[in-house]
C-alpha cells in the first residue's frame, strides 16, 4: 500500500508540530473522511517562507502529505506556495499512495492557500495598526 519511504516519513515526520512565531496559519478538512490538517508558516521580510510546520488529525497519507509540503514550502516565495497544487504533492509520493487517499493532497493544498491568505490578512492588519499609531 505505502512504500517504505512513505512509512519512514510517517513514523518520524520532520515538520510535525506547532511553529513558534508563525505569522500565517491555515486549516482544511475533508468532510467524508474527517481528516484535518493545519499548516503554519513563518514568512520573512522578503516574503520568503523561512519555516513551515503542520499538525494533522488523519491517516498516514495526510501526515505524510503535510510533512512533504512543509519541506517543499521552506525557501519558497508566497507566490510559489500559492502555485503548489495537489498534483505536485501527489507526485512526491512516487505512486505510493492509494487513490482513495488523494484527498490528503487536496486538503493540504487548501491549507497552504489558507495559510498564505492568513499571512496577508495579518500583515494588512498590522500595517493598518501601524498607520493608526503614526
Amino acid at each position: 500500500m505505502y512504500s517504505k519511504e512513505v512509512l519512514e516519513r510517517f513514523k518520524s515526520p520532520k515538520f510535525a508540530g506547532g511553529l513558534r512565531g508563525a505569522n500565517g496559519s491555515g486549516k482544511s478538512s475533508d468532510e467524508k473522511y474527517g481528516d484535518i490538517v493545519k499548516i503554519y508558516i513563518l514568512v520573512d521580510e522578503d516574503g520568503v517562507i523561512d519555516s513551515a510546520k503542520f499538525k494533522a488529525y488523519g491517516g498516514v497519507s495526510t501526515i505524510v502529505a503535510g510533512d512533504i509540503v512543509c519541506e517543499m514550502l521552506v525557501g519558497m516565495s508566497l507566490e510559489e506556495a500559492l502555485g503548489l497544487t495537489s498534483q505536485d504533492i501527489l507526485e512526491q509520493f512516487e505512486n505510493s499512495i492509494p487513490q482513495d487517499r488523494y484527498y490528503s493532497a487536496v486538503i493540504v493544498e487548501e491549507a497552504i492557500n489558507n495559510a498564505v491568505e492568513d499571512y496577508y490578512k495579518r500583515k494588512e492588519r498590522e500595517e493598518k495598526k501601524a498607520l493608526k499609531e503614526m
Partner: protein
Amino acid sequence: MGKRVYLDNAATTIVSSEVLAEMLPCYNAIYGNSNSLHSYGREASAIVDRARDRVAHAINAAKSNEIYFTSGGTEADNWAIKGIAHAYSNKGKHIITSTIEHQAVLDACKQLEEEGYDITYVSVDKTGLVNLTELLHSIRKDTTLISIMAVNNEVGTIQNIKAIAKIAHDYGIIFHTDAVQAIGAIKLDVQDMEIDALSLSAHKIYGPKGVGCLYLKNGIRIDTLIAGGNQERGKRGGTVDVPAVAGFGKAVEIAVRDMTINQQKLRSERDYLLKNIQEKIEYVTVNGHPHQKINGILNISFDMVDNESLLMLLDMEGVAVSIGSACTSNSAEPSHVLKAMQLDNDIVKSSIRISFGKNTSRSDLDYVVEVLEKAVSQLRAISAVTKAGRK
C-alpha cells in the same frame, strides 16, 4: 525482527496444533476422493462424515445432513441470503436484515435489490443492538427471510437471536444468522434458538482458512449453489476439501468443548488490557454494549487520534490490531458498523478493534500498553484537534 503481538483474532486465528494434527494425514495418508466408492474414497468419506457430525453436534442440529460445507462464512452468507430468497420468491420478495451486518450479507442483499427484491435494513442503537420494535414493524406479508448476525464482528455486541427467531416464526418467516463470530463465544443451539439457517467459518476458531458451513434446517428450501456433482446433497457440487473439512470439524469441536475456559481467559485478557489502558491513557471510549458482548473483542476509541495512523504506528512496533473488519479495512471510509450505531464521527475515526487470542500472555499485553501509550501520545502531540485540559 523484534517482539510481535497478534491482537487481530477476530480477523483470523492461528491454526491450533490439535486442528493441524487432524488435517495433516488427510494430505497424504488418506488422500482419496470422498465421493469415490473404493476403500480410499470410503476412508476420506468417513472423515468428512465425522467432521459433519462434530459440527452438527456443536450447534445441536437435529441431523448431520443439515450441515453443508462451504468455502467459508462469506459463501455461506451469500448462499443463505440469495439461495433462500430465490427459493421462496413465489411467496414474496422482501427481506429484513440490519445495518451492521457483515459485508457478505449486505452485498448479497444489494445484489437481490438489483434483481428487484425489497430489503429493509433495521437500525441499531448506540450499543449495537438491533431495534426489535423497528424489526417487528418492518415485517410484511411478502417477507420471506430475516437475517441478523448473532455477534457483531467489530464491536462484539450479542444480538437477541432467540427473540428475533421467534418473531420471524410467528409470521412464518425464515430466520438466518451469521454466527461466524459467535461460535465458541456463546452457546449456539439451533433447535432451542429456533434458527433455520446459520453460517460458520473455521478460521476464526483456530481452524484453516477457506472452509466453513451453512446449517440449513431440513425442510427449508434453498437454490443449488454449485451444479456439477452430488456433494453436499447435490446443492454444492465439487470435490470436498477433506483436510480443510476435517480441520473445521475439529476446530468447532474444540471451540465448544473449551468454551468456558477460553471465555474466562479472553475476559481476563480484555479486562487486564482495558484497566491498564485506562490507567495510562486519557480520553478513551469503549464502544459496543457494556455487557451484552463477547469477551474476545475490545473496540476502543482514542480521542484526537486517527485510527489508521494509530494502527500503522502499532504495526511498526510489531502489534497487530485492526480498524473495522478485515474485509473492509483497506478502505479509507469510516466503519459502517460504528456509523450505523450513530456514534460521533470522532469516535468512529479514532476507534480500533483489539481482538484477543487464547494464547496471548500478560507480558504481551504489557508490551501493547507500552506501545499504545507511546503511539497515542505521539499522534496527539501533532493532532490538529485538541481537547482543553489534555495532558
